[in-house]
């Protein structure tokens, strides 16, 4: 994933913040596809919030580094894994 990449949320995703935790709910097309809901922790919730179709990956990383006590290496690794998961469930493109 390149730092210049701009991520876009899938508009078919329904989200809710419950008790500081973001819940992601995909829109399924068949009862066979229904698997589970996705619940994001505090850092992941901030990343999800920051994905707005305008910010680049580099800008999101900078935001996370500023708001949380973490290192650039850790942000690189964790963000990469998280975005991969979001792409797998078609939450972002």
């Amino acid at each position, binding site marked *: 994933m390149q730092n210049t990449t701009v991520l876009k949320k899938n508009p*078919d995703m*329904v989200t*809710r913040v*419950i*008790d*500081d*935790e973001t*819940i992601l*709910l995909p*829109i*399924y*097309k*068949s*009862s*066979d596809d*229904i698997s589970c*809901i996705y*619940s994001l922790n505090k850092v992941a919730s901030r990343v999800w919030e920051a994905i707005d179709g305008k910010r680049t990956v580099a800008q999101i990383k900078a935001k996370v580094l500023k708001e949380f006590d973490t290192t650039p290496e850790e942000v690189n690794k964790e963000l990469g894994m998280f975005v991969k998961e979001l792409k797998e469930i078609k939450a972002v493109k």
Partner: protein
Amino acid sequence: MIDMKIIQKLKIADVVIGLKSRFPLEKSSSQKRKAGSSFTHSGNAPERFRNFFYHGKKEPEITITVDIVDKLPRVSGAKVLFITNHFQSGDESWRLLKRGNEYVYKSPVKNKKQVMFVNSTFNRVKAYLMPKKKYFLPKGERFYVWRVDDIIYDFLQVLLIHYFALNKIGLFVHSIGVKDIDGRGLLFAGKSGAGKSTTARLWYKHTKAVVLNDDRVIVRKKGGKFFIHGSPWHGDFNDYLDSRIESAPLKKLFFIYHALENRARKVRQREAFQHLYPSLFPTFWDKGCLGNILSMSEQLITDVPCFRMDFVKKD
């Protein structure tokens, strides 16, 4: 166009549904023996639906007009929104389509092939059923009869789930609803196999509480308070037939699980939502309605104390 009268009304969770048709409802076999005619307007409905027949004056909020045809109308140019397959056989049970502002419900199930055209507010339905039984008049003319359960199972459930969600007035919860001796409503939510029917039996056998339903309970908010209502769709436990039209103000919500020891603990909103969500009936075919279901669920777990209840399964 023939002006059809309402021939049967149903009342489910305070919503009155009117059924119209130019064809009569089939009469039960016991009624047939007594009367000269083979048909009636009271219908040959399974016992579980009869308590929901409504004879009051309230006008229906939802009207379903039933037609019986030899060939179902073709639906072309519609977009498939959602398909439900049978959880065991994998065969299609029903699908929901959209064409313009109109929704189309189709069931390909053998002996239950039907197509329903539903308006955008889910309160007007034109239902087309295939004939199951035909009768001949003395002159050789044939005509058809139909049954209330042709509509109730599964179509009416899908219709009401959407109608409640669209208007933000109620939720279907996979749960047991109990009204205790003080009139307080208790809801026990759980997946299939979590022990809902067993719990319902225990309440019925060992207490004077009223079991509203052991599988699908409708939760509605009125005057700032949540109420539980029985529904015609139930599980294995049938012994509460006379009571399930009742409702009760909801006081506690339990999430039930089989475990190695009996215990209950209060859970916070975040955990409560994780337990509640699998027991809901999400309208995946409509993002707005799905959002309403989530909002109502959030209100429910905020307003009503929630507990996780573990219990030991004993044969």
